[in-house]
């Protein structure tokens, strides 16, 4: 019989045409807007966008780079915030992950839950809660209030990555290290750190990307400061030089997209 020759794999890998069309449709829906942003970064129109664009030009790159000094403040602030928030997330996230995965202690489940919660909580809740707290304690809005807001969800990202990696790392490796005479710090440095290194990089990059384009929480914790996403939001109401906003958006896409691709590569690699 013909059907007998067919291996189970060939059955599993062949998708029907309808499914392929559906998948293509979903992907198109997700990524079309990026294409539009890209296209209108090159349009010759300055105020309203029409389709198709009347002409294409590279002039707006020049304008964005040299004639719009108002871009640089928000950009530097966003990069600084993302870097510091990521650093805090790396330290706290990995420490929590180590504690939770290595030791059984009272309140362990509660801590796990509380650490993960901020990513599930709507940003608007986190934002308003932080704003109330900041107001209540009479703290002035600053660079650091933005960072605290971002750290709440950045810690989760690092924590999740590291916890998943530790779960895949055989516990016997750490026991073997101790058995061979290594103190806790030596075991951390020679065994645990290499095992979680790529998870840290991946988690850090995701955290950076999340922080870099965060709007909602930032709106509540930034006060009068403008981060790049908030600056972009502000540009939407301005009539002139609209393609400049698209160019900045492209830059944001690049700076968040690239780390996410790298992060995915790193977490995929085999642990063998």
């Amino acid at each position, binding site marked *: 019989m013909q059907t007998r020759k067919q291996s189970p794999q060939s059955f599993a890998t062949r998708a029907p045409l309808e499914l392929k069309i559906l998948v293509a449709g979903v992907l198109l829906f997700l990524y079309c807007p990026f294409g539009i942003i890209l296209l209108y970064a090159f349009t010759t129109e300055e105020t309203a966008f029409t389709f198709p664009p009347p002409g294409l030009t590279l002039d707006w790159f020049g304008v964005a780079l040299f004639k719009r000094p108002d871009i640089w403040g928000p950009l530097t602030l966003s990069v600084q915030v993302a870097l510091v928030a990521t650093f805090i997330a790396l330290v706290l996230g990995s420490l929590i992950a180590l504690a939770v995965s290595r030791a059984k202690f009272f309140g362990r489940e509660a801590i796990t839950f509380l650490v993960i919660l901020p990513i599930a909580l709507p940003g608007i809740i986190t934002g308003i809660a932080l704003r109330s707290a900041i107001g209540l304690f009479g703290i002035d809005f600053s660079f650091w209030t933005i960072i605290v807001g971002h750290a709440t969800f950045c810690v989760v990202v690092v924590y999740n990555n590291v916890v998943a990696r530790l779960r895949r790392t*055989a516990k*016997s*490796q750490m*026991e*073997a*290290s*101790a*058995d*061979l*005479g*290594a*103190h806790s710090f*030596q075991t951390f440095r*020679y*065994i645990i750190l*290499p*095992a979680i290194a790529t998870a840290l990089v991946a988690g850090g990059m995701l955290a950076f990307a999340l922080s870099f384009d965060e709007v909602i929480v930032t709106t509540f914790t930034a006060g009068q400061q403008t981060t790049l996403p908030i600056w972009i939001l502000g540009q939407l109401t301005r009539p002139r030089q609209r393609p400049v906003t698209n160019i900045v958006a492209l830059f944001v896409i690049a700076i968040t997209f690239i780390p996410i691709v790298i992060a995915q590569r790193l977490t995929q690699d085999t*642990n*063998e």
Partner: protein
Amino acid sequence: MDKSSNLIPAVRFENVSRHFGEVKAVDDVSLEIHDGEFFSMLGPSGSGKTTCLRLIAGFEQPNLGSIFLHGARVNELPPYARDVNTVFQDYALFPHMSVEENVGYGLMVKKVAKAERTRRVQETLELVRLPQMAKRKPSQLSGGQRQRIALARALVNRPRVLLLDEPLGALDLKLRQEMQIELKEIQKQVGITFVFVTHDQEEALTMSDRIAVFNAGRVEQIGAPAEIYEHPQTAFVAGFVGTSNLVHSQVAQKLTGSNETFSIRPEKIRMVEPGTQVQNGWTALDGAVREVVYLGMLTRYIVAIEGGGELTVVRQNLDETSMDVLRARGKRVQLTWQRTFDRVLDQA
């Protein structure tokens, strides 16, 4: 001085218990492991043998009792401060390090000088007969090679006690039998006390100087392999180490005049024609062959005894072919054995 140090046991358990919640993994165990011996902890999974090993290594702390290593109480001593090393069941090689770095790890963390480290790593790799593998990563080794590297990594530190947690479990039969002999040779060569955990009774019988048989967190019997095999003290030991026939109440009464349960090994029973005269000191029972299992080298006969019960008899296929032995099914036979081979067991 030398004499007295030899008298101090390498490992001593004094009424040691380790409980996990309600589960008594190790329940009031006392034992002594002599310096330089090959000691096996044998038992089914969940019998507490691995927990005992982990207690010696320091990965677990006893809830009750005391553990001594070479006379010193080590209950609270962390694993890195104990002069014992472990070969893990999953080998636990460090995947990001080369073979050389894996084997040298113990020396590296103890800050042994580079030259000395290199020399000892090479020496130990030669001992496990893998000197050419130094630069490889663990992922590039076969299962048997990883096992040897795990052994080398533990031996390089020259511990006074080496703990082995079912190290041969993942290997195929041929390789396992080779490694059994090799491990024994290495042990003689280095003269270190080996504590070997296994659920494989044949493995334990092959390699050990002494065996402790574990069941449900307790030690059932400790003794030399022949002693454990020939003189099982409990029904569990008789059944777990090799196979045994347990003869109960009525049949026992008929044969011995006492209703105490006794055990008899299948290979000690002879199967003869019914009505054959037996010698003095031998016992005889009539029965019929219920089942025949042909095993190649041996044949196993299950014989239904008149008056109730079954006995298993194992016979080497000296003169019979598989066709001959299979014809024995249903045949009436007489079973006979020397009375000195049956063992009255402790009532559990």
